[in-house]
């Protein structure tokens, strides 16, 4: 980094920054003695798991933290030599947009839904410059072209909801770049996007940083993304910087055990060798499964959406079928049809040979324990007002088990998922995300199901926890000889756990086959697109040994 900093002083220099947490938090500092620099035209990735303090650091630089709760007590944050911590709110407001700008994770909520996107970009210029309306419009169109938006002349007058997620994020970037700031802070800018869109946005950020010489502080939890964009990497844990260096150093030759563990937890894109499961009748099958939304209603007709079209699938005992696809591909619709949380429009869902697709709710009840689901969001999957034990025994007791027996089963399942039986009396808020997901797995297993559906079950978890929960899912699949339907948008995760893969796009299955075969030689162009878009695919992450 020395060669980068000699010519120009760093755009951002954070020195010994400490920010306190309010009383009653589990540690004293949100951020403790953090130092790093962002040079001109450099992308510095700040990477860490949830609670590592990476977002607090970014918001402190922007002056966006609520100072009452989070107080910077030591250190300085120098933006081109000026200490931001000493600035008043009014001075900070002047600097934001002009010298530093920020883009956020959720492009829908960061844009005003009732304001045309062009006006929102123009607002930046109106506030900070003396430009005339016509000049502003020209400049808006210019920056929109700069972020590679199509049909800019029309798009400038559209509302956020008329644009796709990727386009909205481009608008955010255009807004951030309108005044050519020296520093761009990107807080998980691609986390909410589909993998193919993510690849495009990452490409754009790299391109812009080269063309405009902007210093970029890029916050992410995803080492794949780090491998794609980073010049330098700052690894944070529990509010402290664990390790920093060039991307090459940190990713290839990490020194600290924590960094090694984080990198080691990133699932590889190469599927491990698996014996194909060919014996036995399929325990779960779907034939010609369709789900159509908005076909008719009492009050008029809406747009018809084929959420799932002619889906065929079969899963045997002890087998994991991965369903991968981007948002809107229909993968969750298929899962919800199989569990009958929604009613399929047509087609068959066979559980051990019985068609449950058109069964009445009353008749269906007897089959409820055969199929169980683990959901994505560990914070919403358990009723916060009921103890973990109550949540786990609810299902078995529905099917006539006595409370004592159900609790006994719950206790032994808790041990199986790596928690203690004593924890049954506690409430969900006393557990971390990963632990809650283990509890959800225990709750599903308590029903003694034949089929386990994991609907993005590890997507909300930090990478180190993700690896453990994945391993647990694989263990229980073996132990209870379950057929598993594993729904995910993450191709790395799918590669590690699935025997077979089914790729969905716009409600249709475009490709299905053994995982190793699909990854090695994808037949459908969309599969190839997905595999190419996976972040960090071609970087040095793949060279690591192990798994």
């Amino acid at each position, binding site marked *: 980094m020395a060669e980068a900093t000699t010519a120009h002083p760093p755009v951002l220099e954070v020195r010994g920054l400490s920010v306190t947490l309010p009383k009653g938090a589990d540690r004293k500092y949100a951020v403790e003695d953090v130092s790093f620099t962002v040079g001109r035209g450099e992308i510095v990735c700040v990477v860490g798991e949830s609670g590592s303090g990476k977002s607090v650091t970014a918001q402190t630089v922007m002056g966006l933290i609520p100072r009452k709760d989070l107080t910077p007590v030591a250190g300085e944050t120098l933006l081109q030599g000026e200490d931001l911590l000493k600035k008043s709110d009014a001075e900070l407001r002047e600097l934001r947009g002009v010298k530093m700008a920020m883009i956020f994770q959720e492009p829908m909520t960061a844009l005003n839904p009732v304001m045309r996107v062009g006006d929102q970009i123009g607002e930046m210029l109106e506030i900070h410059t003396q430009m005339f309306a016509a000049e502003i419009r020209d400049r808006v169109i210019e920056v929109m072209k700069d972020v590679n938006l199509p049909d800019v002349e029309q798009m400038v007058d559209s509302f956020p909801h008329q644009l796709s997620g990727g386009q909205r994020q481009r608008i955010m970037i255009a807004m951030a770049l309108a005044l050519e700031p020296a520093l761009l802070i990107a807080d998980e800018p691609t986390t909410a996007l589909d993998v193919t869109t993510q690849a495009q946005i990452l490409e754009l950020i790299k391109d812009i940083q080269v063309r405009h010489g902007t210093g970029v502080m890029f916050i992410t939890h995803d080492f794949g993304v780090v491998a794609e964009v980073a010049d330098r990497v700052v690894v944070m844990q*529990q509010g402290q910087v664990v390790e920093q260096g060039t991307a090459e150093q940190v990713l290839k030759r990490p020194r600290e055990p924590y960094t090694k563990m984080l990198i080691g937890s990133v699932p590889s894109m190469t599927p491990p060798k698996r014996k194909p499961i060919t014996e036995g009748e399929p325990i779960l099958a779907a034939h010609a499964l369709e789900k159509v939304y908005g076909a008719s209603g*009492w009050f008029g007709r809406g747009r018809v959406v084929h959420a799932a079209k002619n889906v065929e699938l079969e899963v045997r005992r002890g087998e994991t079928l991965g369903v991968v696809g981007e948002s809107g591909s229909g993968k969750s619709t298929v899962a919800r049809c199989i569990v009958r949380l929604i009613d399929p429009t047509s087609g068959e869902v066979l559980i051990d040979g019985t068609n449950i697709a058109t069964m009445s709710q009353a008749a269906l*009840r007897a089959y409820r324990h055969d199929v169980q689901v683990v959901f994505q969001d560990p914070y919403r999957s358990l*009723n916060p007002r009921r103890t973990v034990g109550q949540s786990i025994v609810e299902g078995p007791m529905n099917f006539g088990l006595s409370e004592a027996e159900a609790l006994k089963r719950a206790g032994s399942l808790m041990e199986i998922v*790596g928690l203690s039986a004593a924890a049954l009396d506690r409430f969900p808020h006393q557990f971390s995300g990963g632990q809650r997901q283990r509890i959800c797995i225990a709750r599903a297993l308590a*029903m003694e199901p034949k089929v386990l559906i994991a609907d993005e079950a590890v997507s909300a978890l*930090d990478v180190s*926890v993700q690896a453990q929960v994945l*391993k647990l899912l694989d263990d229980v699949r073996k132990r209870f000889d379950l057929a598993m339907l594993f729904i995910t948008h993450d191709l790395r995760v799918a590669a590690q756990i699935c025997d077979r893969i089914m790729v969905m796009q716009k409600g249709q299955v475009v490709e299905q086959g053994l995982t190793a075969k699909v990854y090695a030689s994808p037949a459908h162009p969309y599969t190839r697109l997905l595999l190419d878009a996976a972040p960090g695919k071609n970087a040095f992450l793949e060279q690591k040994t192990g798994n």
Partner: protein
Amino acid sequence: MAGNPGQVDFSESADTTLSSRKDVSLVAIMWRHPSVFWGGLLLAVIVVIAIVGPLFTVDPVALNPIKRLKSPSAEFWFGTDFLGRDVLARVVHGARISLVVGLAVAVIAVVLGLLIGLVSGYLRWLDAIMMRVMDGLMAIPGILLAIALISLSGATLVTVVIAIVIPEIPRVVRLVRSVVLSVREEPYVEAAIASGTRLIPILWRHILPNTIAPLIVQATYICGSAMLTEAILGFLGAGIPPEIPSWGNIMSEGRTYFQLTPWIIFYPGIALALTVLAVNTVGDGLRDTLDPRIARKM
């Protein structure tokens, strides 16, 4: 992937956010929110007066034609009305009527609204029908309905309560329904469905608890507005029979002598205003405590 069985999530730190649960005991609420404390104190005083007050006052309907229209004095603190009845005794007695009407309307409206709202929010096929019925109910002017009901079945406390309850029910239904609609999408409800939990336990265990906090707040507002409506009905002569001293009736009778003897209207008016103020203050305080999100928006 490294990891051995029984390995703990050592690196997991998802809960560094402030997860320490708020203390929601009544004392703690009162301490943090003075409005709940002062409102509650005022309300408690009014309730105590309503319960024990009549034991210490004279008969509120005893006529004393010699001492008509006396101004407030040591003998008659609030003065007397045109029939020589003690206004203090009447106001204290009227507190009972107001509080009973307020409480009864709040409880009945909340219970009925909760039942209808839960079912109609959860069972979509019933929803369309129920909500049109509720729209219809909301379109009926409350006072008009009360006058119609009372002319049909006579003026009693029960009719007045029914007349006030009916237009309040749709408001409760809409509130409960909106909570149900958002909670039914929660994964924990879906998990319960997937494990074969029947309709009633799902509503009772997983959905109903989420409606309690907004309902308590709503109940206080209903209570306050019911007391006002009852007084308006009494004032219009369409409420509780005139021989019963309710605040509305007292004010109605005092209206004729207002310029001569303003205290006949003044004291029940003050009592009504204070009571509604107390109830609404408690409601506001509870809203801030139970749903801080709404409080910040307002």
